[in-house]
């Protein structure tokens, strides 16, 4: 199906957002990270706030991830190398995205919330990351893009997860 993308954020429906987020989840689960990177604007930010102060600015605290576009590209380049040891061989992931809501629009921007449960399975363990997304999406001619992708974990300690070597 081909449709002309809507560049007016006010005309984007929840179904449009769900289609976007589900496609994004599939790209991550399939480790198609370079295609995934195309879903981001040049001025994007990807962040995971600190577990003990998730309401605080990830750029002003010892948070978990605070990636500008440059660093996000490096994160992706790294994860696709066999020398990204924590993800070699690649773990299997399965992302359950739900409770998608449009919280508001502002110009070409949409404030979007969703819940996630991301499962990571490797040869040794199955761990789960639970939390919510707080995204700022941009409606453009070539479809929706992330300007701000924020994964807020509900976990208080990464035990037994131990690390966040995948993208959440």
């Amino acid at each position, binding site marked *: 199906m081909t449709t002309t993308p809507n560049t007016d954020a006010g005309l984007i429906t929840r179904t449009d957002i769900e289609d976007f987020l589900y496609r994004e989840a599939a790209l991550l689960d399939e480790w198609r990270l370079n295609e995934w990177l195309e879903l981001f604007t040049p001025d994007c930010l990807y962040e*995971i*706030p*600190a*577990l*003990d*102060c998730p309401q*605080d600015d990830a*750029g*002003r*605290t*010892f*948070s*978990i*991830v*605070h990636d*500008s576009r*440059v*660093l996000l590209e*490096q*994160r992706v*380049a*790294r994860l696709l*190398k066999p*020398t*990204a*040891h*924590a*993800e070699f061989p690649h773990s299997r992931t399965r992302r359950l995205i739900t409770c998608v809501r449009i919280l508001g629009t502002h110009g070409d921007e949409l404030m979007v919330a969703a819940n996630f449960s991301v499962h990571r399975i490797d040869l*040794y363990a199955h761990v789960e990351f639970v939390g919510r997304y707080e995204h700022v999406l941009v409606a453009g001619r070539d479809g929706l893009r992330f300007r701000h992708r924020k994964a807020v974990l509900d976990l*208080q*300690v*990464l*035990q*037994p*997860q*131990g*690390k*966040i*070597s995948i993208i959440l």
Partner: protein
Amino acid sequence: MTGPTTQPFVIDDRERSRFLVNRNVFVSDEVYQREKELFFDRLWIYVGHESEVPKPNDFHSRQVAGRPVIFVRDGKGEVRVLLNSCRHRGAQVCREGKGNNKIFTCFYHGWAYRNTGALVNIPDAEAYGPDFPKGELGLVAPPRVDSYRGFVFISFDPGVEDLTDYLGNARHLMDLVANQSESGMTILPGIHRYSMKANWKLLIENSCDGYHGMSVHQTYIEMMMDLGVTPGIMPQDEKARPAPNSGIDLGNGHATTMMREIGLPMMSDGAKELAAQRRRDLVELHGEEYTARMYNLTRNTIIFPSLVIVDLNFGIQVRTMYPTGPNSTEITGWQLIAPEIAEELKAYRIDNALSFWGPGGLATPDDVAALEQCQRGFATVKELEWSDISKGMVKDTPTTMDELQMRTFWRRWNYLMTGEQARPEGPTYHQVIGADTAGVS
């Protein structure tokens, strides 16, 4: 210790320059129990930094050496550590991770304690009679609580040596951290708490291991080079100003690696100028030589048994690791920063620190993965008993790429476990930084 089947734990063969550690020390429950008794019940153990409780009545509750404690600044400003267990029936009286409280009330029967520890209310107190020793039933503090330059430690052994003596030359490394701020180095909000399925000592080794950098962190090094920066562990321009490159025994099992600063990728011109200005300010305070040591060298310091301070030019990581069994470890990481530096420089340091450290960094997950792989490999311990930590033992001055710093840890570990003495190796801290500065810390 008596009766273990795994001795010797350590073979320290100076003649053949071989240093071997028995892998049973990473898997044995008996060894783990002895470590708890000999180290975590007796030595100085790090609790937190005074800057984490800046205001009266601020507190954090956390696990330290296997015990729940409340790390609190009381109403008069004194920093205290209290065991988080009600004198009545033992329930934890504080159930929040952090906050600001004058009173901690046990929700089981309602006994209430001031944040000095004093028991201030017992519901239906008359039922205990007039002789009930309420004044003796406050929350208990560990027998020894002391601090050095903002770093607060406790010991459960009333007879433990004084903290300053215990820290030995590690104090100079803590000074190099503390002196980076006039107003007091400050822990940033945000604590990394994570676990690994590996023995805690593997992370001590890893925290001061220069040798693993090129292999485990190859992707990080490639990232830096991609962004136009040559990391410090790469071969350097020899015409550049000479810098120490040494593993150093700091006494009492503490050790450090000291080498030239590592590169700063993605630094804006504004941040570069702010960093240069910051350096000029520090030179004014401390002089060029000390500032160069503070600012243009990096240090990975281990403080026996389980505190690490990694002081790099882009960030300062404070890290503790406590065993929860021979095969499992709880890890906590904090970030120290000079609070007075400009916001742009602060933001740069935070981003740079996050790119490397922590459970979502581009480096730490690979360390965790490496150590868990070691632990899995130890299932062959009956066939493969020994790990090799000999690197650089043939040299007079082992470098940061060698393993003197780990051998220092293991010699202390072995001494405390078995009573076997070992002579130190390599130059002292003051020999490395230059005899002319021996009087300077």
